[in-house]
């Protein structure tokens, strides 16, 4: 093969690109149907963005570890500033706002933060001497790094993204070797604090989402509508689905947000359990690749970043699917590669790009002996 194809092209991670292409294409098919058999307004743009961000990811893959190390903290600070900007614009303009209009693109800084926090936290544990990993100094900087973005995002208010950001950071802390008892203790504390947070920390509409999630049938036309309709879409699809373009829940507008957060329900209605298993298997391959990259990585930074990014994508998928299937409250998290939406696609593809970069530059075993 290398005889016919130029080396730079032959060196591309074709297997990964193929997997991404298949998944995005399936998203294209679902969005095409969601629009009633039309390229506009979603399916066409979805593919254009995919190729655009794929190109970006391939460019990222040429950059090496040192680049990511160098930009880790600056990017983090920049995104925090952007989050602050969003808050200020919202306060001045009256009403909450989540995106910044840069003229050519509208960016949700909270989406970018999902990547930025991974880089920053990974860089921090990379810099931390191994001997201090079980000390207090391994903990407080993490909390500081988390406090700014989480505080600003929960103000927006966007519970789903806050959780994803925090979960990404904590995953890295876990991998970095913080004492296990902290995580066990944390889990216990969470169980205790959740009810308190529910009653005092959440906005009323968020509380309602949670209570509705616990009992969607109580309020089938109100806040429980999303979950109920989503389950109807998935359930009525059966094993083989109603067939391409034959979904009624989506086409007759019973399923809200059928092209964004609830795109999986749109898919499941037409493609059934079979389509669902294919999508899950696709994600499984993606995560296996992501963790494989982490295992092959030789430096501590790339290891942490690789797992952190894989976990970030995983949180998207897990939270979205749990929400769509009625296992989690409606929190507004899109499904990677299938949901329509520029910001999330960009975030996912940045993650993929950095993973490809680490895949390509696994680095050298830096300090095997300390």
């Amino acid at each position, binding site marked *: 093969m290398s005889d016919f194809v130029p080396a730079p092209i032959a060196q591309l991670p074709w297997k990964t690109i193929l997997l991404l292409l298949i998944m995005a294409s399936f998203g294209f098919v679902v969005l095409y149907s969601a629009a009633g058999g039309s390229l506009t307004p979603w399916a066409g743009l979805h593919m254009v963005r995919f190729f655009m961000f794929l190109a970006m990811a391939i460019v990222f893959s040429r950059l090496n570890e040192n680049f990511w190390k160098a930009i880790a903290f600056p990017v983090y600070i920049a995104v925090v500033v952007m989050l602050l900007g969003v808050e200020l614009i919202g306060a001045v303009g009256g009403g909450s706002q989540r995106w910044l209009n840069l003229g050519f693109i509208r960016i949700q800084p909270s989406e970018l933060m999902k990547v930025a926090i991974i880089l920053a936290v990974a860089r921090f544990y990379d810099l931390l001497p191994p001997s201090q990993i079980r000390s207090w100094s391994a903990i407080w900087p993490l909390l500081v790094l988390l406090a700014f973005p989480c505080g600003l995002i929960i103000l927006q208010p966007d519970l789903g993204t806050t959780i994803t950001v925090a979960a990404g950071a904590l995953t890295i802390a876990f*991998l*970095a*070797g913080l004492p296990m008892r902290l995580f066990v203790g944390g889990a216990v504390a969470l169980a205790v604090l959740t009810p308190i947070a529910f009653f005092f920390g959440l906005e009323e509409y968020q509380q309602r989402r949670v209570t509705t999630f616990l009992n969607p049938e109580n309020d089938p036309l109100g806040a429980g509508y999303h979950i109920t309709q989503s389950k109807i879409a998935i359930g009525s699809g059966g094993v083989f689905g109603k067939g391409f373009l034959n979904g*009624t829940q989506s086409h007759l507008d019973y399923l809200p947000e059928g092209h964004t957060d609830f795109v999986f329900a749109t898919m499941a209605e037409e493609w059934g359990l079979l389509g669902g298993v294919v999508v899950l298997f696709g994600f499984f391959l993606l995560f296996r690749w992501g963790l494989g990259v982490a295992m092959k990585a030789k430096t501590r930074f790339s290891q942490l970043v690789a797992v952190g990014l894989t976990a970030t994508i995983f949180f998207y998928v897990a939270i979205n699917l749990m929400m769509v299937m009625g296992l989690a409250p409606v929190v507004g998290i899109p499904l990677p590669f299938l949901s329509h939406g520029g910001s999330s696609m960009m975030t996912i593809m940045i993650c993929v790009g950095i993973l490809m970069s680490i895949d390509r530059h696994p680095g050298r075993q830096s300090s095997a002996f300390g």
Partner: protein
Amino acid sequence: MNGGKVISSAVQSLTFTRRATIIGGLQVGIGLLLAGRMAYISVAENERYQLLSESNRVNLTLIPPRRGWLVDRNGKPIANNRSDFRVDIIPDRTPNKEQTVATLAKLLSLDAEEVERINNELKQTNSFQPIQVASGLDWEKYAAVSVRLPDLPGVSPRQGFSRFYPTGAAVGHLVGYVGIASAEDYKENPNPILITPGYKIGKDGLEKHFEDRLQGEPGAKRVEVTARGKIIRELDTQSDVPGKPLKLTLDAELQEYAARRLGPESGSVVVMDCHTGEILTMTSMPSFDPNSFSDGIGVTEYGMLRDDDHVPLRDKSLRGLYPPGSTVKPMDTLALMRAGIDPEETVSCPGGLRVGNRFFNCHSTHGSVNMNRAVAQSCDTYFYKMALRIGYDPIAKAARELGMGEKYDLPVPSQSYGTVPDSDWMERKHKRPWANFDSVNSVIGQGYVLSNPLQLAVMASRMASGKKVQPRLLFTNKKIEVPAINFSQEHLMHAHQAMADVVSGRGTARRASLPLDGIRMGGKTGTAQVVGLNVGRGGRDVPWKFRDHGLFIAFAPVDNPRYAMSVVIEHGAGSSSAYPVARDVMTFMFDREKAMEQLEPLEKSWGGNIAERTAKKMTAYRAQKELEKAIAEGRIQSTSDDDISDQNTEPQVGQ
């Protein structure tokens, strides 16, 4: 914190690998959980969700069934269904109600009263139950609304059927009317058809009684709708099963004729086949137009009906009770003859009879009268004396045998069946023994005796045919077997002759003879006092409500009786108001053209036919209400209060 453990990069790397594996495991676990959950929803609960998805997608619209027709004995419709266009509002889906109603009022040219009714109903309910804006629309108006639908959310134009009564007010009391099911109806039977626009149920009369039979089964239309209620396409339609028709014994033409012949009077005409008991007409006027009720009656029209002193809302044939007066005299003679009185025996009439310390008047001084003359000239003295001789109980027994005081087995919502008093009844009801003056009062159909017009017709029928007929409203092709009554043929012939003589030369109703060759009518006049004699006779010179009721019972032909009837005119100032009606209606039985000729000049003098007169009355009523309102609001100064209400100045007199 560090627990004395020296952690190297190598240890860290090991920790990383171990913990990354844990994370990978967790991810696989969550993935399997999700797959399991999805399989559960889409396989185990598939059926349930498929059903829910279908009920989302498909909107079932019920199609109100066409009601069964009511037809007369000749198959002519009394109540049928007219194809019409209608417009409803669904309150829940109408955001800007006032604006919408105003637009509709302009498009459909609704009057202020209708707009008020719609606005009132809109205020009272706020649900999916539609409110009728208008029905019976023509195509142009329907189309005018239909094309503006995008600007009129919540407005629903439909094509359907509405109940139509071709003879209008003539059948009002008997047939009843239909209307939208009430909230109570729906609570009792929460069938969605009840709140479907255009669906009506029987509210009164035969329409109510035969609801189950007339109702039919609704059809259904399945349409695919979006979450916002927009119809995408029609899936399939199952047509309705119309209700079964009901054939009545009535003769619609006769019913209408009788109603028209009653004219401006308040009264009742009942005609029966005297051999079968079939009711050919049972008219009570004035009446309401069931068409107006079925469309949702306007406030003004209802107010007019309610305020009318001729009580158009009461069925006089079945619910009106009147002292039968002298119409009971032929029946009296049958009782007397059965008690052994010789019809040729004469009694002297000096113009009345003293019983105890009261003097009972006869309306004339008849001199020497026998039974025949006592009936023909309606001599009260003869019956006073005879009643005192045989007592009243045998007469009461005869009265009951002839159908007085009886509640008949008829498909009607209610009957007032009056009283035939006797000594037992007096003990039971008034705790006193029967007195002579009771006999004297009762034998001339006064005192405690009360009957409704249908009973009078049944009495006339039984006497005419000698058969114990039961009145019936439902037509049957089977032969109706009727037992004979317990009076001898000879006695009946005698009574027939006396009734014939009432109408012939020397009787009290000479003008009642039929203008037909060879067909004679027999009858008996009656005058029922409304107020005591101390106020004076209830003739035409006293206010309407104090005038005597005029009654007449009749049968024809005398030689071979076929039809019997009763006519009651409320406050007709004596029997002379009743027997001309009886004559014309009986004429109609034999010669319809001739009867119509009699009617036309009369209607002209009354100011038009029923519909025309009602319209005039309505205009006058509306004008009066406007005037009252204007005075109440101080817009106009009242010059004389008497203009508005002339009731207050009348003397208050009890019976």
